[in-house]
């Protein structure tokens, strides 16, 4: 027994004096091994519990005797009142000074305590490993560290309490001082960040209880909530102030700065643990609560930013909105509204723009520029085409603008991109003339040919065309217009076939075979026709008999299904009073030619009918104007030979004058009788030959600007032209914009076709599915036809009823909303 006690006490004495040395920073004289062995022996002798208690008591006494006095002195009345009451009398500077002094004191005492305890815990390692673990007590370190918390932080200081009248602890002062300093830094002051970090690290190392549970760090349980609350109040005030005093741009930048600042703070001044939470506070106070106010601000808000392409501002807006709202709803809505507004404005601008200025007349076909009587109507047509081009250009420019915004500011965000696309589709489809205008745009670009443009430029144009095509809802309308314009281009040779084919190829890729089916047919017809012409020419040549007066024939054979109706019929039913039936009467030489070709054509084919379309063809005529007697000088004194290019109708008319004696005239009605042409065609052709000076090979009596049935026409011997090759104005060569009535016509025809398409779709679907309810059927139809056009619900209903009547479908007996297919 004695031996045991005596073994314990010497060891304990050794340890106790070493504890003192350690606390007083005199540890260098000590031998670790010796102390370690001392505690080892104590534990082996089963006195671990005694040692544990003695150490604990020692530490408490040490606290009381050596550390507390220092702290108490730090906590002067001044400090308490400034920190907790914050009278307005004290300046920021003063508060900072006293605050930092206090914090430094706490920190230093903590540091010493921490270091000492680490050392002590190491020395008593054996005790911890065995006794403590076995008896499930907190480790030496935890216990003694906890003493710091209990004796210092949670200590109330007697005297100061009376002044305030309510209990508080040093911890409260500590928190208040730290938060005060942080707010000072937010306002721009410089503080000792390192000091604060030490304090917060200290709080991270202390726990609510000696169990040292992770989630119960004092930092998290006491400091952080207060920090977040104070920050919330701070930022709430700040956002109010910003709303009162500044504009959206400032607010954006300010918020961004604060976010960065707080993030930075979480590494340097307080713990990383708080990073997300403080970011959430800023999100809530600075962003969410005032977002709509700032974005909607007059003159500086989102609308303004979009209009003026404020890239940096928009990027910040995107980033901030993405933080708080995954759907980016406010931004999306604003963008969509703006696109719609700007799109509608494009249309408005169009209506208000005056296109009569020739410099705006970009679409004028070179040939048409010179005619004066026709100048007014042609200019009107050309004006409208110019309008079409402008509309397309404006829309494309708008698209470029928003695409640019999406790429540079919005990080190619899919949600926003699809929202913008949707709005574009919306306003484009609201505009009735969009299908037509897009086709005109393509027409204009392709007509100019490829000269002077690099491959890249052509690519760009084609890409733009396809882009616009994607937006169009009424694709079948577009198909109709495109077919019409394409026919004109092909028949008059106005564009490069390669480019046309390239575009058709892309359309096919984009919208499927059935869309380009007709166009491909047209291309094929053109190719076959070329071969046919060449072969025919060879055939004729081989027949021998070179006749100097033989007419050289170039032919285009059009398969009527592929080509638009305007190209394949002559304009007989265009509201003229001409009641004559039958085709145009051709001159005998031409008729011979036609028969010859017809025979050749039918050699290898049977069962086909060829119909000549004079409104689409042209003829090159060699003219001889003999010397005018009586003139010795000037151009009229010579014989003039010209080559005149006229439409087929024109050729038919001119040939009549070959047999006419000199000086005689033919009247309008006579010409009409001989040629069997309709009034409209006749007027057009005569006008181009007798009114405009460029090709005035006929004289008109009376020489008015309009053609009347009573007019007379004769050979003009005094015709002079600077050029040898003259082209009479082709009136069908320019694709012009349709007038109101024409457009309504086209729409009506289109609707009819659509009805057939819907019928076919209904039958197809029902055949496959046998039974379908009304709603399912409608949905199915809309889905299937979506790539062509958007069917009207009423129309679908009517078609279904029609099919019911025609007994393709019937209603089922049980449920009248379910249809059944009737074979």
């Amino acid at each position, binding site marked *: 027994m004695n031996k045991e006690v005596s073994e314990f006490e010497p060891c304990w004495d050794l340890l106790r004096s070493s504890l003192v040395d350690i606390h007083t920073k005199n540890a260098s004289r000590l031998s*670790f*091994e*010796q102390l*370690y*062995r001392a505690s*080892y022996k104590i534990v082996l002798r089963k006195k671990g519990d005694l040692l544990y208690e003695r150490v604990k008591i020692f530490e408490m006494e040490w606290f009381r005797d050596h550390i507390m006095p220092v702290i108490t002195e730090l906590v002067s009345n001044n400090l308490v009142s400034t920190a907790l009451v914050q009278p307005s009398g004290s300046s920021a500077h003063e508060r900072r000074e006293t605050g930092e002094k206090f914090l430094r004191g706490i920190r230093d005492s903590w540091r010493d305590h921490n270091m000492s305890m680490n*050392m002590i815990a190491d020395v008593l*390692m*054996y005790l911890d490993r065995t006794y403590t673990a076995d008896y499930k007590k907190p480790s030496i370190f935890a216990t003694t560290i906890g003493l710091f918390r209990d004796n210092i932080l949670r200590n109330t200081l007697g005297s100061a309490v009376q002044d305030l009248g309510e209990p508080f602890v040093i911890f409260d002062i500590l928190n208040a001082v730290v938060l005060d300093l942080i707010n000072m830094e937010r306002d721009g002051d410089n503080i000792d960040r390192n000091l604060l970090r030490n304090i917060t690290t200290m709080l991270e190392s202390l726990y609510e209880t000696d169990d040292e549970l992770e989630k119960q760090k004092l930092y998290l349980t006491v400091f952080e909530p207060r920090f977040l609350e104070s920050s919330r109040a701070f930022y709430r005030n700040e956002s109010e102030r910003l709303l009162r005093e500044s504009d959206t741009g400032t607010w954006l930048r300010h918020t961004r700065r604060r976010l960065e600042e707080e993030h930075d703070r979480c590494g340097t001044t307080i713990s990383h643990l708080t990073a997300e939470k403080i970011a959430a506070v800023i999100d809530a106070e600075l962003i969410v609560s005032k977002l709509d106010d700032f974005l909607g601000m007059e003159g500086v808000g989102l609308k303004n930013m979009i209009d003026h392409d404020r890239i940096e501002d928009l990027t910040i807006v995107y980033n901030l909105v993405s933080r708080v709202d995954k759907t980016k709803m406010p931004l999306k809505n604003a963008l969509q509204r703006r696109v719609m507004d700007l799109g509608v404005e494009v249309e408005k601008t169009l209506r208000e723009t005056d296109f009569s200025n020739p410099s705006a007349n970009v679409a004028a076909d070179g040939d048409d520029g010179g005619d004066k009587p026709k100048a007014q109507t042609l200019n009107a047509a050309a004006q409208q085409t110019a309008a079409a081009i402008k509309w397309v250009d404006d829309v494309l420019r708008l698209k470029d603008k928003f695409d640019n915004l999406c790429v540079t500011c919005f990080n190619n965000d899919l949600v926003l991109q699809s929202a913008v696309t949707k709005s574009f589709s919306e306003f484009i489809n609201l505009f009735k003339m969009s299908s037509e205008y897009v086709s005109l745009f393509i027409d204009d670009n392709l007509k100019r040919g490829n000269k002077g443009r690099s491959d890249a430029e052509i690519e760009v144009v084609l890409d733009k065309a396809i882009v616009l095509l994607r937006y169009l809802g009424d694709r079948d309308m577009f198909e109709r217009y495109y077919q019409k314009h394409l026919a004109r281009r092909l028949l008059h040779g106005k564009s490069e076939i390669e480019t046309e084919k390239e575009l058709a190829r892309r359309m096919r890729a984009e919208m499927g075979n059935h869309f380009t089916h007709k166009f491909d047919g047209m291309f094929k017809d053109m190719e076959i026709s070329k071969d046919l012409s060449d072969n025919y020419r060879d055939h004729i040549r081989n027949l021998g008999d070179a006749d100097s007066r033989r007419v050289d024939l170039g032919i285009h054979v059009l398969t009527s299904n592929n080509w638009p109706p305007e190209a394949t019929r002559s304009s007989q039913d265009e509201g003229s009073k001409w009641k004559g039936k039958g085709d145009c009467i051709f001159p005998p030489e031409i008729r011979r030619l036609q028969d010859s070709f017809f025979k050749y054509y039918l050699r290898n084919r049977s069962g086909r009918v060829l119909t000549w379309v004079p409104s689409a063809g042209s003829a090159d005529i060699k003219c001889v104007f003999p010397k005018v007697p009586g003139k010795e000088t000037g151009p009229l004194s010579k014989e003039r030979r010209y080559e005149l290019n006229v439409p087929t109708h024109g050729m038919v008319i001119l040939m009549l004058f070959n047999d006419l004696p000199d000086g005689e005239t033919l009247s309008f009605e006579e010409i009409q009788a001989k040629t069997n042409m309709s009034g409209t065609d006749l007027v057009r052709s005569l006008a181009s030959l007798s009114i405009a000076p460029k090709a005035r090979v006929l004289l008109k009596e009376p020489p008015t600007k309009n053609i009347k049935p009573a007019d007379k026409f004769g050979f003009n011997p005094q015709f002079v032209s600077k050029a040898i090759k003259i082209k009479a104005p082709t009136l069908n060569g320019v694709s012009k914009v349709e007038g109101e009535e024409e457009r309504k016509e086209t729409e009506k025809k289109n609707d009819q076709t659509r009805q057939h398409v819907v019928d076919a779709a209904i039958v197809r679907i029902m055949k496959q599915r046998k039974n379908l309810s009304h709603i399912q059927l409608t949905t199915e139809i809309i889905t299937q036809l979506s790539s062509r056009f958007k069917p009207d619900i009423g129309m679908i209903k009517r078609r279904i009823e029609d099919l019911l009547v025609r007994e393709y479908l019937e209603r089922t007996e049980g449920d009248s909303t379910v249809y059944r297919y009737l074979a």
Partner: protein
Amino acid sequence: MADDGPNKYITLVSSDGFEFVVLREAACASPTIAGMLRNQMVEAKTGRCSFAEISSIILEKVAEYLSYRLKYKDKLDVPDLDIPVEYCLEMIVVADFLGLDEQMA
């Protein structure tokens, strides 16, 4: 005692004065020795750990074990370390003293 930064080697001194030089890294496998070397007491300053109650024969085996442990750390197919039977009991006691028990990783 020149202080030229943490030396790579440290010396373990037995009760009968034998010295064994081992890598610091190897020795710190023992939490006790590690504790000795990280605090600012005599051992840390001189890089010498004296064990007043461990004989040289045992300490030698300890030193061998520490090096062996470091060498074959995280390896497969490790050859056995030979410990003569008569020393086993003392080795166990010393192992406990030095914290080299199975709770270590």
